[in-house]
C-alpha cells in the first residue's frame, strides 16, 4: 500500500516537479520498490495524455537526416542495459562482496600473524643465542666447579704408607688413599706373603683409638693386591691404617699379634 505522501511524490516525480534532493531520494526508493514502480508506470499514463494534448508540430524533414548523420559519425559506446534489481544477482554480489571483505580481513590478519610469527621467531633465535651463551657459561662454571671439587677432593685425600711388620716379609709394603668426605678409599699392596686358603688379610682404619674393619682380601703367590674399601662404620678421623692376618672372612676386632702392615 502506497501512502499518501509517497503518492504525492510519485505525482510530482512523473511531472518532473520534485526538488533535486527529493528526486534523488525518490529515485533510490523507486529502484527497489516494485509496487512503487507499477504505480509510477500507471501514473505516467496521465503525463502521456498531457504530452499528447499539445498541438502537433512536425519536425523539419532535414532534421531527421541531420540527426542520423550526427549519430552515424559518433563512436557508439555500447552501454549495458540498466540492471534490474534481481535478488539472486544481488545476493551473489553481496556474497562476493562479503567474501572479498573476508579475504581482505584474512589477508590483513595473515599479514599480522606473519609479522607476529616473524617477531616471535626472532625472539626465539635471540633466546636460543642467550641459552647457548648461558649453556657455555654453565659449562665453564661446571668445569670450574669440577676443578674446585677435584682440588677440594685432593685436599681431603689422606695418603698413608703401610710398612711391613714381619721379619719373613720385610719387603711387603702398601699404600692407602682415604677420602674422608666420601668415606671410602683405595688400598694397594705388594710383596705380601701368600696365605693358605683358610686365611685372609683384613684392613683396618684406626679412628682415634678405635680400629674399624675396612675389608678383607686374599693374596696369591705374587703377593700383590689392589682393592677399593669402605669401612663398616663411619670414620671420623682416619689416623692410621693397619692390616692383620685373620681367619677366612675376617673378624670384628683385629688380632694384634697377627699385624702385618701398619702406617705411621
Amino acid at each position, binding site marked *: 500500500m502506497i501512502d*499518501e505522501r509517497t*503518492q*504525492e511524490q510519485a*505525482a*510530482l516525480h*512523473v*511531472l*518532473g*516537479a*520534485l*526538488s533535486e534532493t527529493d528526486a534523488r531520494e525518490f529515485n533510490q526508493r*523507486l529502484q527497489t520498490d*516494485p509496487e512503487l*514502480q*507499477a504505480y*509510477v*508506470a*500507471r*501514473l*505516467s*499514463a*496521465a*503525463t*502521456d*495524455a*498531457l*504530452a*499528447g*494534448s*499539445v*498541438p*502537433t*508540430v*512536425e*519536425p*523539419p524533414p532535414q*532534421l*531527421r537526416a*541531420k*540527426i*542520423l548523420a*550526427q*549519430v*552515424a559519425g*559518433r563512436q*557508439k*559506446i*555500447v*552501454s*549495458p*542495459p*540498466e540492471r*534490474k534489481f534481481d535478488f539472486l544477482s544481488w545476493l551473489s554480489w553481496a556474497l562476493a562482496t562479503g567474501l572479498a571483505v573476508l579475504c581482505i580481513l584474512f589477508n590483513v590478519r595473515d599479514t599480522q600473524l606473519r609479522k607476529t610469527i616473524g617477531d616471535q621467531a626472532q625472539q626465539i633465535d635471540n633466546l636460543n643465542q642467550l641459552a647457548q651463551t648461558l649453556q657455555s657459561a654453565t659449562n665453564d662454571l661446571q668445569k670450574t666447579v669440577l676443578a674446585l671439587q677435584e682440588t677440594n677432593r685432593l685436599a681431603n685425600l689422606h695418603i698413608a704408607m703401610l710398612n711391613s711388620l714381619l721379619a719373613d716379609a720385610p719387603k711387603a709394603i702398601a699404600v692407602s688413599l682415604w677420602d674422608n668426605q666420601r668415606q671410602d678409599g683405595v688400598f694397594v699392596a705388594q710383596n705380601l706373603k701368600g696365605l693358605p686358603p683358610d686365611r685372609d688379610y683384613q684392613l683396618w682404619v684406626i679412628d682415634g683409638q678405635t680400629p674399624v674393619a675396612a675389608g678383607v682380601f686374599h693374596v696369591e703367590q705374587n703377593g700383590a693386591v689392589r682393592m677399593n674399601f669402605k669401612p663398616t662404620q663411619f670414620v671420623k678421623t682416619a689416623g692410621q691404617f693397619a692390616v692383620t692376618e685373620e681367619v677366612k672372612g675376617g673378624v670384628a676386632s683385629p688380632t694384634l699379634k697377627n699385624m702385618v702392615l701398619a702406617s705411621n
Partner: protein
Amino acid sequence: MSFCAQVGDGRCSSVFNAKLDCALTFSKKDVNDQEAQDRDIELLRQIAAGDRAAFADFYDRHSTLMFSVACRILNDPGEAQDVLQEVFVQIWEKAGRFDSRLGKASSWAVALVRNKSIDRTRASQRRTRLAESAQADQAVTTQLSPSVNETIHGSENAKLIQSAIDELPSEQRHAIELAYFSGLTHDEISTKLNEPLGTIKARIRRGLLKLRDQLEGVL
C-alpha cells in the same frame, strides 16, 4: 462502430461512461498498444547495441510527439530542433538505460525532451515569461493544429483524452500544467499561486489520479 463515434458532437460528455461502451474498441487498441510498446523496447535494445536502422525507426515513431512537446515548452521551433537533436543523441548513447518497469519507451523519450527543454528555459531565465506566454498561445495553436494525441491515437480517443483533461478542476489542471510544461517545482508553484505547499501537492496528486483513472483503457 463504437459508441464514441456515434456521439453527435463527436465528443464524449463523460469519459467514464464512454469507456464502458468503448470496451471492444479499447481491447483491440490495448493489443496494438502492447505491440507498440514491445516494438519500442526491442528498438531501444537494438539501439543500445548500435543498430542505426532501429534508431531511424524510433525517430520516425516518436519524433513528432517529442518535437511538439519541445515546441510547447520552448515556444521556439529553432530551439526545439536543438533539443530534439540533443535528446536523440542522448537516446543513441543511453538507450540501454531505459527501464520498462517505469513506463513506456515513448514516455521515457518525452520525459527526456521535456527535461531538456525545461533546462533550456531555466538557463535562459525566461521560464516564467514563457510559461505565461505559452499558456496564452496554446489556446490559439490548439485551435489551429490537431493535438498529438489525435495524430497518434486518432480523433475519437484524442477527444476522450482531451475531455478527461478538460474535466479536471481548473486549479488542478493549472498546477499540473505549470509543473509539466513550465518546469516549476511544487515550491515554485506554491509561491506563484500563493497557495500552501500542501494544497499544491494535494491538487497535483488528485488531478493526476483523476486523469489516470479517466484514461485507464484509453492510453
